[in-house]
């Protein structure tokens, strides 16, 4: 009778081993995932009331700081003096509503270590500094506020990047919310209200919203064509009013319904400057989905970036489009199956501006201690070279023409050479999502920008990228000129 009893005991102990394995997974291996889950209020609860480091911009503007609580001498209040425009970057830390943004991503650095946890005591024993550390961010506060104001409450986003370093100069989502409202005792109710708002003010439209990029995607298709070596700006295509999609009843027309140029043939350059759909549908089908997909991926499509908050990966479904030339034609003009975030399109503009090299977007430039000494600094890092220098230079020329003589004329700013590309993505229903991506000054680019306005903003159904998004870009670039660091 002992045999079966032994086997019962053995199976039970195997069961206990499984329990031990699962506990190990949760408490040892998966700790970061569960402890930092935004729905886990424990971290923000234990941090609330304690002093935290400041978050400060290069120009000295304080975006987050801790102040002594007037009602409780032992306790601190977290203050966000910069307001709604900075919510997607700074985020918040709240006893009741969890945490987000840099407050969450750098929670370990920002927190005071003087709270008697065993590991902190051990660190103190070895002479570690337990005071909270502070963050310096790359955001230019005036530019951030100007971009937020320029969107005028419309649903949309603006992302501005320093092409040479990858520094985020502005990261705007609109509409936004005041993070201070989430720190009070009514935070739960406030959060419910924000979540119920149809304009979704807590949504990160800059890095976490996938939108059809419209004609701004032609920058990638054109660069992909030049990269093959067989196409130049002077390559010509038949100039028709409509392009018949292969294997389909549908055709693609230009925005105004007319041919692009003289009605006989048209160069890639003219088609790009005037944003002619017929030519780019044909070009996309000619060079094929694999080539476009390869270049798009090198630009960062298909990969999400941690800023440290997560962003959504932009999409170009190469394999599906390879099977379906009609869909490829439509995707070649940024419609149908292509999706991109404003952050991704800003990176495309920045890469062209930077001679073909993509820099990793960076928000925090350094961490410093309570004495103001730098503890850690984050150097610019290259993400690779999706396109060659000559192709980038050619793209830059074409994009400058878009602003001087093409669809992007309203992005022009007196006193500086601006390059760019407009986009008007006709959704399946509703008003178009409109875009402008670009950079300035052309001879030595210091700012790359992407502007996206959902559903055409105030202009509604008649909105175009050139009419709605380009002027916003001009406002931001103009502002950048006046504060140019």
């Amino acid at each position, binding site marked *: 009778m002992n045999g079966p009893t032994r086997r019962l005991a053995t199976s039970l102990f195997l069961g*206990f081993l499984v329990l*031990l394995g*699962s506990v190990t997974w949760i408490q040892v291996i998966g700790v970061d995932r569960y402890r930092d889950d935004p729905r886990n*209020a424990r971290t923000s609860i234990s941090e609330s009331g304690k002093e935290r480091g400041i978050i400060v911009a290069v120009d000295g503007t304080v975006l987050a700081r801790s102040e002594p609580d007037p009602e409780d001498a032992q306790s601190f209040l977290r203050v966000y003096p910069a307001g709604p425009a900075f919510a997607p970057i700074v985020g918040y830390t709240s006893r009741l509503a969890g945490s987000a943004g840099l407050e969450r991503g750098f929670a370990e650095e920002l927190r005071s270590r003087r709270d008697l946890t065993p590991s902190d005591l051990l660190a103190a024993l070895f002479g570690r500094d337990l005071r909270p550390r502070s963050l310096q961010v790359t955001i230019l506060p005036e530019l951030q506020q100007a971009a937020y104001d320029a969107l005028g409450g419309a649903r949309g986003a603006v992302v501005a990047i320093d092409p040479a370093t990858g520094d985020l100069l502005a990261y705007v989502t609109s509409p936004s919310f005041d993070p201070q409202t989430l720190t009070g005792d009514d935070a739960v109710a406030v959060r419910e209200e924000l979540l119920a708002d149809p304009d979704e003010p807590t949504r990160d439209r800059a890095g976490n919203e996938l939108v059809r990029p419209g004609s701004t995607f032609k920058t990638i298709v054109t660069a992909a064509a030049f990269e093959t070596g067989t196409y130049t700006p002077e390559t010509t295509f038949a100039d028709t009013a409509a392009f018949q999609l292969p294997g389909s009843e549908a055709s693609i027309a230009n925005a105004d319904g007319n041919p692009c140029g003289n009605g006989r043939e048209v160069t890639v350059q003219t088609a790009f400057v005037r944003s002619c759909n017929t030519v780019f549908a044909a070009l996309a089908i000619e060079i094929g989905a694999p080539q476009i997909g390869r270049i798009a991926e090198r630009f960062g499509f298909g990969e999400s970036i941690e800023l440290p908050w997560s962003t959504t990966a932009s999409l170009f479904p190469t394999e599906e489009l390879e099977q379906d030339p009609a869909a490829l034609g439509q995707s070649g003009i940024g419609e149908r199956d292509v999706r991109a975030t404003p952050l991704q399109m800003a990176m495309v503009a920045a890469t062209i501006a930077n001679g073909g090299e993509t820099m990793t977007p960076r928000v925090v430039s350094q961490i410093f201690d309570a004495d103001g000494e730098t503890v850690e600094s984050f150097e610019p890092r290259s993400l690779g070279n999706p396109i060659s220098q000559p192709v980038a230079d050619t793209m830059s020329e074409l994009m400058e023409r878009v602003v001087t003589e093409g669809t992007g004329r309203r992005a022009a700013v007196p006193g500086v050479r601006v390059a760019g590309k407009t986009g008007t993505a006709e959704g399946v229903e509703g008003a178009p999502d409109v875009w402008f991506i670009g950079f300035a000054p052309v001879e030595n680019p210091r700012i790359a920008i992407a502007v996206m306005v959902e559903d055409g903003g105030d202009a509604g159904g008649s909105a175009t990228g050139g009419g709605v998004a380009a002027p916003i870009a001009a406002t931001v670039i103009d502002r950048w000129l006046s504060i140019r660091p």
Partner: protein
Amino acid sequence: MTRAAEAALLFGAALLAALGVTMVNLVGGGGLDAQVALTFMTMAIAFGAVHVAIRSFAPEATATLLPPVALVSAFGMIEIYRLDPYRASLQRWWLLLGAAAAIVTLAWLSRTGLNALRRYRNVMFLLGVGLLLLPMLPTTGGLPVRGLEANGSRLWILVDLGFVQLNFQPGEVAKILFVGFLAAYLADRNLALTGARRKIGPLAIPEPRQLAPLVLVWAASLGVLVVQRDLGASLLLFAVFVAVLYAATGSGGYLTGGALLATVGAVASWRLFDHVDRRVTAWLRPFSDYEDAGYQIAQGIFALGTGSLSGAGPGLGRPDLIPFASTDFIFAAVGEEFGFAGSVAVLCSYALIVATGFGIALRTRDPFRKLLAAGLAFGLGVQVFLIIGGVVRVVPLTGITLPFMSYGGSSLLGNFVLVAMLARISHEEAA
């Protein structure tokens, strides 16, 4: 291990409980107070008395059984106090009552000997069935004992003695009675069940007549699930039944048949009953179903994850954010405040208790006592596995108690009796 070492370890567990309560007090600005003294005295008196009872009524019993029980009990005391001091004061009374029940059991068994239980085989069976049915009594009316529905399950009774009302979960005691019945029944007719086999293809299965009790208990445990909506008790009952049957006969057919029937029952109840479906959803996708069914499990995982290696410290975590932290989720509360170290200590303690139980069963020659020990040890182990497994997402959550740790009197009482019986079997074998 000697009795003196056992006494020292029990004293240590009482000290640990008092120290934990002190630390919880310190977090709230208090310190050494009456709660600390009461915790220490309750632990010391309860386990000290059981220790003395074992010395006089079962002196040859193994000394490794009681100390791990005292250790998990100390962890439970600290966390219940940390979550709800009022419940802790009730739990102290239950601990004393449980110890008293263990002492009465030991004293009674030392008078009659364990084999006397065999004569009460059918009494145990009927009593067990009766206890299981008790919660189905009407919830209203003038009866002193009434059914009680809690959290969607019908497994409690309310004992109204006029001056005091007590909630009691009779299933915890029924578990022991069923093991006793099964051990006695199978020890008597072991041969009949191992006898003839019928061959179907490569499978040798027992005669249908021998499978009948299996199907009967399967139906009964499904009944518990359907009528009382109690997934945990149902599973536990069936698992213990199959295990004892297997231990008695050594015939793998019972395991296969049991597993098949359990699977059929599980899948059917998952498809048919909303409350089971909710549990399965919460088990598989606690985080995507966070706002609804998954909330409790997700909070438990957050608690454990935040506790990490060394834990937040007693009183410094937030186990109060977990629904039912002091009953179903006491393991998560310990894991949050005592960390991975505490979780492992608890798991190892239970493993030691169960291993000691099985060790007793293996050394025992008398078939009744052997089956009894194996059944009790297995029942305790499966119960621990089901509820901790539910918290750490190894199995769907079944609302049963964690022996000696969860808040609740019936569980403490039942499991103290169980440990007393194991101690007695151990003594009779050695003596």
